[in-house]
């Protein structure tokens, strides 16, 4: 009984456990996986996010350069953020606003000449790679060298070009044979 009276008085002067929401907002936690945001100027349309998405929420049209994101399909796992080589996808620590109809978010990807060059090279690489499953040189050692000089960040090039410079030993071997 004494404890009950104590509790009653305590609760009279205690702040409520809940927030008075519209007036008082909860500060977002850093790292919260909230609103999906794309930086269209950074994207290189590698479609890694499209392939990695477990819910098929992302659709990329390479020809029209449209990037489509379906917020109702998205499960907010953040796998696309992890897989993006350019870090151009972000899940911002904000809550998404409610929707009244099924709307998709769309972005148009802008490509700089530099990015276009990388893309065309990548496309060439993909075609070549599909044709020859064996690890063979796709560009000669000189071209490779010049490419490496042109790009300041060597690691980046290796990451973006992949199998161009995959197998140096094989390349040397084949050049010797020729």
């Amino acid at each position, binding site marked *: 009984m004494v404890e009950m009276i104590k509790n009653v008085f305590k609760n009279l002067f205690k702040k409520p456990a809940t927030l008075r929401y519209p007036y008082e907002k909860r500060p977002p936690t850093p790292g*919260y996986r909230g609103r999906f945001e794309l930086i269209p100027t950074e994207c290189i349309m590698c479609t890694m996010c499209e392939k990695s998405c477990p819910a098929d929420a992302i659709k990329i049209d390479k020809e029209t350069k449209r990037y489509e994101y379906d917020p109702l399909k998205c499960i907010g796992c953040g796998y696309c953020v992890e897989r993006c080589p350019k870090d151009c996808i972000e899940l911002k620590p904000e809550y998404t606003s409610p929707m009244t109809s099924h709307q998709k978010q769309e972005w148009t990807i802008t490509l700089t000449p530099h990015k276009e060059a990388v893309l065309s090279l990548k496309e060439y690489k993909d075609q070549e790679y599909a044709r020859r499953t064996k690890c063979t040189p796709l560009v000669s050692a000189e071209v490779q060298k010049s490419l490496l000089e042109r790009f300041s960040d060597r690691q980046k090039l290796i990451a973006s070009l992949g199998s161009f410079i995959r197998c140096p030993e094989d390349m040397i071997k084949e050049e010797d044979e020729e």
Partner: protein
Amino acid sequence: MAASTRVSVVPLGAQHPVLPEPVALKLSLEEEKVVDVSITVGYCHRGIEKAAEMNDFKQNVFLCGRVCGICSHHHTTSYSDAIETMMKIEVPERAKLIRTIVAELERLHSHTLILGLTADAMGYENLFMQTWRDREIVMDLFEIISGNRVHYDINQIGGVRRDIGYDVVKKIEKGMDLLEERFNILAKSYLDDPTFKKRTKGVGVLSSAEAHTYGVVGPVARGSDIPEDVRASGDENYAAYKDLHFTPQVEEDGDIYSRTKVRVREVFQSIDLIRQAIGYLRDGPIAARVQGNPNGEAIARVEAPRGELFYYAKGNNTKNLERVKIRTPSFVNIPALKYMIIGEEFSAVPVIIASIDPCLSCTDR
């Protein structure tokens, strides 16, 4: 004058305010006494096992997490464990400890959830709200650790996706202190309250022999004097439990009260396990490299908040798996419900259902 023994059939569910998820019970009542019951599950079947064959094995981690909203982490741990066994990946110690910490936090939030719902089912609204208020401490910790309150997706094949920093560890420790302090008060209500005792003692009894027959798992089994806990008996790959010291909590009576007792004690046990795991944390990698595709078959068992969760996976050296089989604890516990309910008063039925902690999303998959 002989009393007329008319049997009336009362449907409870599939949608009913007292049920958190859809399960249909057809109760045959004689006056107030339940004489027969038929249970139907399958209202939230989503075909996840089939969907797991379509996705690539790394995406499946997220899919398996979405089998259940409450034991999400245990599903991903179990699935990753199965794939890691298949691919012979060595998970780093730090990743194992982070998995353990999140798993125990999940047990905390699941147990506080169902303890609250048990109180709610018997009309003890105040206790329900207080329990759920304190559950928020754990939910906030989840948001800090993983970036989401539900579906934390902290696991990936080979380790975990996010590291726990020093400041987060401090926050977890602080949260555990606060939760322990608050739960000490709540535990008194659950264990000593005369109202609570009256509604739970000797109700929904599942004897040890029957528990063996039905093969129940988790707190239901431990409440019926079966010391079964995968954390203690499972293989040594399972998170970091082989380093931690604890004993399974067992009660003898097999009624709702003993199940509640087991859960209340497990809340304190989880708090202790989290503190132990934090003590073991050392710097190191949080994920191992994954190369190639899974080939062969593997199983994994984990102790989810509701009991033993079992995963079977079969790979065929492509990125898609051939088969994923999930056996969830609620699926095993629900048949035992029939035995518990028959012979009880109608008013005790919701409490009995809440006491086995049924998770229908898990059950139906």
